């Protein structure tokens, strides 16, 4: 894993953002897009840049489910919790995935290889029930297919 970005580097990254102009989210997106997650130092740097407190910036980070304070796993599996998927048996797929990957929702294996988290429906319900593997839809799942997928991921295929 690469070292966490330093203060100077972060300051340059967010130098374009200004207080009072709706720049909190864009600044946080830029940090996460660049490093994959938002570090404690980044929260402090963004707060300073936007003339506010780290508490308010941390509050923002923790409010939204797509901001991360830890690096993502190599392979992130997002399980669609939406209604079309649920109607097609999605919750049993979650049960099996958690069991097979030995992970809670929003958990990560100790070696950071595989992560599992909740995904929200993006309107690809025609493929329900589904998961996203690193953003790619794996649809038309059955529980059996989900178990085999999890085994392949664990085996590193």
């Amino acid at each position: 894993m690469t070292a966490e970005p330093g203060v100077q580097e972060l300051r340059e990254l967010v130098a374009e953002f200004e207080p009072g102009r709706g720049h909190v989210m864009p600044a946080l997106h830029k940090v996460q897009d660049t490093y994959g997650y938002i570090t404690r130092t980044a929260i402090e740097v963004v707060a300073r840049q936007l003339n506010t407190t780290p508490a308010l910036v941390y509050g923002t980070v923790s409010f939204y489910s797509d901001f991360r304070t830890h690096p993502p796993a190599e392979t992130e599996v997002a399980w669609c919790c939406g209604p079309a998927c649920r109607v097609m048996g999605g919750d049993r797929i979650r049960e099996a995935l958690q069991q097979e990957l030995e992970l809670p929702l929003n958990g990560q294996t100790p070696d950071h290889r595989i992560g599992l988290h909740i995904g929200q429906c993006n309107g690809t319900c025609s493929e329900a029930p589904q998961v996203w593997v690193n953003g790619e839809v794996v649809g038309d799942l059955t529980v059996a297919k989900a178990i085999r997928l999890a085994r392949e991921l664990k085996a590193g295929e």
Partner: protein
Amino acid sequence: MNSRLEALISSAKQSWASEQASGRVRINVTLDTSSQAKGAGQVIEKLHAAVAAKKLVADVGITGSWGFCWMEPCVTVRTAAGTQTVLYANVTPERVDELIEKVAAGHDMPELALGVVEGNPTADIPLLSDHPFMQGQVRRLMANLGITDPENIDHYLAHGGYEGFGKALEMDAEAIVKEILDSGLGGRAGGGFPAGRKWDFLRTATASPRYLVCNADEGDPGAWVNRVLMEGDPHLIVEGMLIAALAGHADAGYIYIRYEYPLAFARLKKAVEQAYAKGLLGKDILGSGKDFEIVVFLGAGSYVCGEETGLINSIDSYRGMPRIKPPFPAQAGLWNKPTNVNNVESYANAPMIMRNGAHWWSSVSDAKEKGTKMFTFSGSVNWAGCVEIPFGPTIGEVIDRWCGGMRPGLELKGFQPGGPLSGIATANRDLTLTLDPYRELGMFLGGGGIVFFDQHTCTVDLCSYFLGFCEDESCGRCTTCHGGTQRAVEILRRIQAGGGRDVDFENFQKLVSTLVWSNCFHGQFAMTTVKTAVKAFEDEWREHIFDKRCRAGVCQGLIDYRVRSAGDPALTEAAELCPTGAIVPDGSGYTIDDPRCIRCGACKEVAPNAIEVVDRFAVRVAEGAAAGG
């Protein structure tokens, strides 16, 4: 019309005409989130390669969605002479070579064809307009989808784009508001509040600057109408906002797009950049002396940021917590300045209202709700797609016509009309797609995402999901909402686990009457699903609570998985698949070690004849009695 706009339009029309008369075959691929899920990106790459390999004189382009989301990737092929265009579906990467081979030989490919878009039908390929899915649709918002390249502003301009804005430029603000009011355009997020009245609030506000917000958060799971529009014809939204800006003297606009829609975000960003480049946004627009800026803003995963004041806080503040109203956005919105919030589809209707007039727009049907509306359908039906129709058809018509019926073996049990706050309706095929019937049932029609379910769905489980969603997404401001949804989830899960109690109906009633005191609609309507489901599916709920029985075979605490025929050879695969190793050898066959079973159902998928789902309580009570209890 503004002469600079006229020049833009005429040059766009020329370039469109020369594209059409290029004498080259034109192959267009639907490129949106649904088609990407089926490999549309790869299809484009393979098309380029196949065209080169066959030395076909052809161009490969992209379009927005036709609405045939369940048959993506969709591809149109227009002959070199321009005499015929055919729409093909299910053109997966594996089918590309075959298609191009046929096209290169001057043939079509009836087995993948959906219909003829322009030109004459053939013996094997009917007109697309005769396809059952297209029947009864009135495609106005979706007119360009499948036809134009959403990333090309000239394509938009060549199809009447920015003409509505051109008309509005010559009118005063009051006249624009009047046209919108006359049309009867109601808010498309589901409230139906007249857009013209909202715009008039902004027009008559005294403070400045003033803001427009386009609500592109589309947080209702199971709804993707706004996504289809943004990905397919983004300039419609830019133009709609420009018209609203003239009507309300707005200085700047924000388009707030949810994080789950990266392609919509990219397309709108591009559309806005192109509009700036053509002088349609910025200072002194087309020399008119008017200024208007648009910022495309990306959310980060929060349902309550779809609530208008949560959205405003998400832009101008820190956490996206819905504000306490009043003041309303019209008085104090973004940076406490007058702000108008409308849904994507509300703005997108404005260009054609200006272009063709309020009367033309509203006379599409006799329904009280004017104009057309986009809907997406999904769940237990054959077709999960996107349509544009006048308000008014019945649920029965919807299922038969635009959903291709229920999937084999599935019966309609009910449906979710419009998101987690909207309620759950029974299998009433006579309910119409209009606002009132749902209001009368204490529900909402919502923003257009309808999810159908069947006998294998349990309404207690469905409510457990919806309330879990509401709990997760509560912003935490009101104890009624964050504590109340948490309590509701606890009760629902307890019922699902077999611990239902007599007092639970009363508990729900208490929660319903407590949550209405929440600050925003999220809390106020979080219990709608439970309230409506308990009433509409009372027998099912009583069975869960009193008889400890889940007729759909879903609730984990109320069912057991059992081996019915221990010698079935399929059990070997089931045993290998079982994620907990619960299927264990037993004599010459297998049995299920119940404490290990997590009721995932994988075994039943691969050994459907060997495994059965039984009522846990009924069976155990009976077995206990047989054992001499």
